[in-house]
């Protein structure tokens, strides 16, 4: 049986890089997809301490829930934006 797929476009938050995937499995989790796309768009996977970084996938002005599947959360042909969470600190990390 053929796996259902969507064609999706992805971009970085600053629009610097875009990526098109013609066949994203609809059963893939949004969390897994976000991590894979972030790497492809040349976001770092880990911080300098080796801890995984946190990314969000935006569809328009909404964040796509990571626990959902692609088929449930987005539509074929969507453009999705990958954004990184970050921290500013006036003092060193503790």
């Amino acid at each position, binding site marked *: 049986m053929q796996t259902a797929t969507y064609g999706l476009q992805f971009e970085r938050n600053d629009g*610097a890089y875009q990526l098109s995937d013609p066949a994203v499995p609809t059963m893939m989790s949004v969390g897994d997809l976000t991590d894979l796309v972030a790497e492809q768009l040349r976001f770092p996977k880990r911080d*300098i301490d080796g801890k995984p970084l946190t990314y*969000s996938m935006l569809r328009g002005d*909404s*964040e796509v829930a990571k626990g959902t599947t692609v088929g449930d959360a987005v539509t074929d042909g969507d453009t999705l934006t990958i*954004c990184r*969470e*970050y*921290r500013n600190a*006036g003092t060193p990390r503790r």
Partner: protein
Amino acid sequence: MPEPPVGSIALGATMPARTITPEAPTPRGDLELTVPVRVGAGMVTIALEVAHCEWILRMAALLALRDGELLRSQPAWARIVAGHVSDVHGATLCLQSLHVEVSDEEGRVVRVVEFPRDVFTDFASARAAGLLGHGGKPTIGTPGHAAGGTTGRVAGGSDVGGSGRPSVAFSLHAEGMATGRLSVAVPTLATMSISDLEATATPNGHPADDWIVTFVGERVRAGFDELTRRSRASGLEVAGRVAARIGFDPARRAFVRILDDVVIADDGPATAFSVVSTGRSWAEFIATAEDRRAPTSVHTHIHFDPAASVPPPTTMSPPATVPTAVPKVAPSREPIISVDDVLTHLTVFPDPLSACVIVSLFDEGTETTLYGYTPGARLRREPGYWLLGSQGD
């Protein structure tokens, strides 16, 4: 007739369509970079990803564009190559520098930019600060030489420890010689006249004009005022992002950034000394920014005593998280930028035209400082900027 935009790609670099699987990673070549950091008697190693080096890739491409080595409407490529080798430890090269080779769409190398090992000073300092904790923050000092050990040594590394502080030194190590060819973003830049903009602006401090000139619009000042109001009311750091128009003055061969508007990001956790900007919080900025290619970050630093300044709980926002007794960021009147802030800028805001603004709130008064990239890919405190719309017109 105005000159057409300078730049190669209208929106950004488009990577080839591909099926996204873990088996199809970004081409990396064989270069593996690490930064061994010696902190006192201890040693830690930072594993650098190519993505950690995004800011030097873009800087090299932008310098090539500035100097006419990249043509308009042309994709650009870059790869990172091991630079000058100071020592060899088995298969590991101890590097004094990295080279970034910039290629045009024909694959011709049009520019090689050398970045010294010291562009990673802030990576080493931040890693060291994380190990040492709040009380042991190292300061960035004059590079020097550190004694090396054997395995994983930092021989000939850069010493970032200051006098009386724990000794911190680091090296830049490489296995392999070069990354694969990477698509690199080169923004389309509107043609702008710095002289014309200056004629409608007032200098604040002594604005630099060596390679980029910064102008700050009235809405941005209003946005900073709102950040200030919220931060003073809550006793918490508040963050946002500043949309900027970017351009190029061909007469001066200098870049222009015009800070246009502030979008406050207040959905993340905050304390009196840190603030998290969530991925979700980018949505409003992306939706409203006229140009989002070179976003500038802004956040407040609290130098006043929040416990003495915040209003009663009935009017605090949000009351549950206001600290009752917290240390000030710094007791002095001097604005600061933490090494964590620098590292956040290098890795989250890698566009060379992006800046970092810190609004420092003191017991009496507020000071706004702007930090921008140098052509050498380090972050500097800008000596000033131009205020638009402040000539009483």
